[in-house]
């Protein structure tokens, strides 16, 4: 179970701007962007392509840097951390789930799930045990030694979720996790995310184009041209 109280401020973005440079051309994705995400929220980010949803996810996960402004996690400035500090922070606090699963093809399901645990001081046995627990949570305990190519898309995404939660992070950042799945598989994955949010207290921030997926979230934001609008809020 994740530490901290549900409802307290987890991520805070203040006056964030993000500019991409393409030669002489500057593309401004965000300007004076502000956002607050609370612990235990299940946030869906929707919006047209190129609106900055994935960029926002990358900024929150420390995979990208703001051009100006502040990003705070539990009151700590992420934008001021060095690369190695950011990597260490990521390994403890954030799990990523990608649209195309991004499993390592030469590793079995359980080995893929063990990957983030290689950064911990856990023993080999303990790592394996934790990885099995994570796979149990996504109902894949009977597919431990399957290579990704032997698994269906839905199963691969569940392995990716297991990998994301293996080190028990507070936050899951999901970039169109159901984008490559059929409805049934997508619903299975979304049920798991919902359960991780409700039963295990994980804060989930999910980029999606799918209104059906967004219905699983407690809060839905619409992002367009760097502006945020709240479509739905449980609060």
């Amino acid at each position, binding site marked *: 179970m994740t530490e901290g109280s549900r409802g307290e401020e987890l991520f805070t973005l203040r006056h964030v701007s993000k500019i*991409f440079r393409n030669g002489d051309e500057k593309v401004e994705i965000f300007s004076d962007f502000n956002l607050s995400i609370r612990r235990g929220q299940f946030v869906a980010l929707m919006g047209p392509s190129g609106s900055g949803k*994935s*960029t926002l*996810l*990358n900024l929150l*996960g420390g*995979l*990208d840097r703001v051009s100006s402004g502040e990003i705070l996690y539990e009151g700590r400035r992420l934008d001021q951390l060095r*690369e*190695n500090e950011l*990597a*260490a922070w*990521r*390994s*403890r606090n*954030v799990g*990523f789930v*990608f649209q195309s699963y*991004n499993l*390592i093809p*030469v*590793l079995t399901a*359980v*080995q893929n799930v*063990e*990957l*983030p645990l*290689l*950064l911990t001081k856990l023993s*080999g046995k303990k*790592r*394996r045990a934790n990885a099995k627990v994570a796979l149990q949570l996504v109902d894949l305990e009977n597919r431990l030694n399957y290579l990704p190519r032997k698994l269906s898309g839905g199963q691969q995404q569940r392995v990716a979720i297991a*990998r994301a939660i293996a*080190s028990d992070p507070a936050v899951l950042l999901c*970039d169109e996790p159901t984008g490559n799945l059929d409805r049934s598989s997508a619903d299975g994955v979304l049920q798991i995310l919902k359960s991780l949010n409700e039963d295990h207290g994980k804060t989930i921030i999910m980029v999606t184009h799918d209104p059906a997926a967004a219905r699983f979230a407690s809060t839905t934001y619409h992002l367009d041209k760097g502006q945020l609008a709240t479509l739905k809020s449980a609060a």
Partner: protein
Amino acid sequence: MTLTGLVRKNLLRRKLRLVLLLFSIFIAFVLFGVLISFDQMLKVDTSGGDRRLVVLNKISYTEPLPVSYVAEVRRLNGVDAVSYASWLLSFYQRRTNPVVVYAVEPSSFLDLQSDDIAVAPARRDAFVKDRVGLLVSDNTAKKLGLRVGQNIALSSLAVFKTDGSQSWTFHIDGIYHAKSSRDDGLALYMHAEYLNEARLTGKDTVDMIWVRSSPGRNLDAVASQIDNLFANSPVETKTSSASEFAKAFIAQLGNVTLVITLVTSAAFITILLIVANTMSMAFRERTRELAVLKSLGFSSARLFRLMVGEALFVSLLGGIPGLLVAHAAVTGLRLSGSTIFQKIDMPGSVFVLGLIAMVLLAGLGSLLPALRAASVRPSVALGKV
């Protein structure tokens, strides 16, 4: 699952590429081991403390000196002992068994070479007293199956006897062991008197004069003194210290050592480029996965270490068997009975050098690809901006 396991899994992705890469590295280190061993074989101990000088004909070491020079040198100040030698290139039974016989003044020569040659006192005495006696190195005796007390005939290649024959009969009086690398442990020693009496041409000449300077005397001064003595004579001399002589002798093989250096360097640079290219390809194929690892919390430094570790693993996996096969090849050459390779060996220092070369190969070969791989930006590599 461990980081080593991850490295191993990554390496086994493309088995054919791995096998070819390992084979390239394997061949490079077989070459490395054999060539460096050959190079070591050509090296001569030129450590200090040697008071000996070698006097040769100034024109060339193949031109002789009058034997009368020996007595003249002996009279000089600062000269402690003098001896001389002529060589008789011969073969035993078949031309495939070549031997170099040095015709020496036995007592003075063995006295001068006592640091290099070990022979039992009784055998030494027997050789000194026996005009047709022969002193054989242990290596040559083993190779040709010779033993003390045996009578043998050697055939000279260029020197004819007064009776027109080229056959020289000897009685083996002793077997010696070469104590230092200055003696190649291959030569045979005969009496100079026997050669001088029986040879058709070149009588009363010697090929080299060995001099030991008196303790405390400056070797260069003694050498100059000798050369000045014979300056402006029909046969001028060139005197150098024994260590310089050995170096100069080896310098004649300068091109061989240069070729060794060039071949080893070329092999290494080629393999280095192959490793760099292969690693570059391997890392480029995995850019997306590296980005995923970064998103999981792997730092750039950790990814860099993983990549270099992968290259090191490959380098050791190909290199160590290469060195072991080189060792087997060197041993095979030594035991083959070939005169040239009788002293070849692959000491531990070559293994240490080889291991250092493997680390360098991995480090240099993977440095740039690993740096590039480690600096991958996940947001770009994952195709989402």
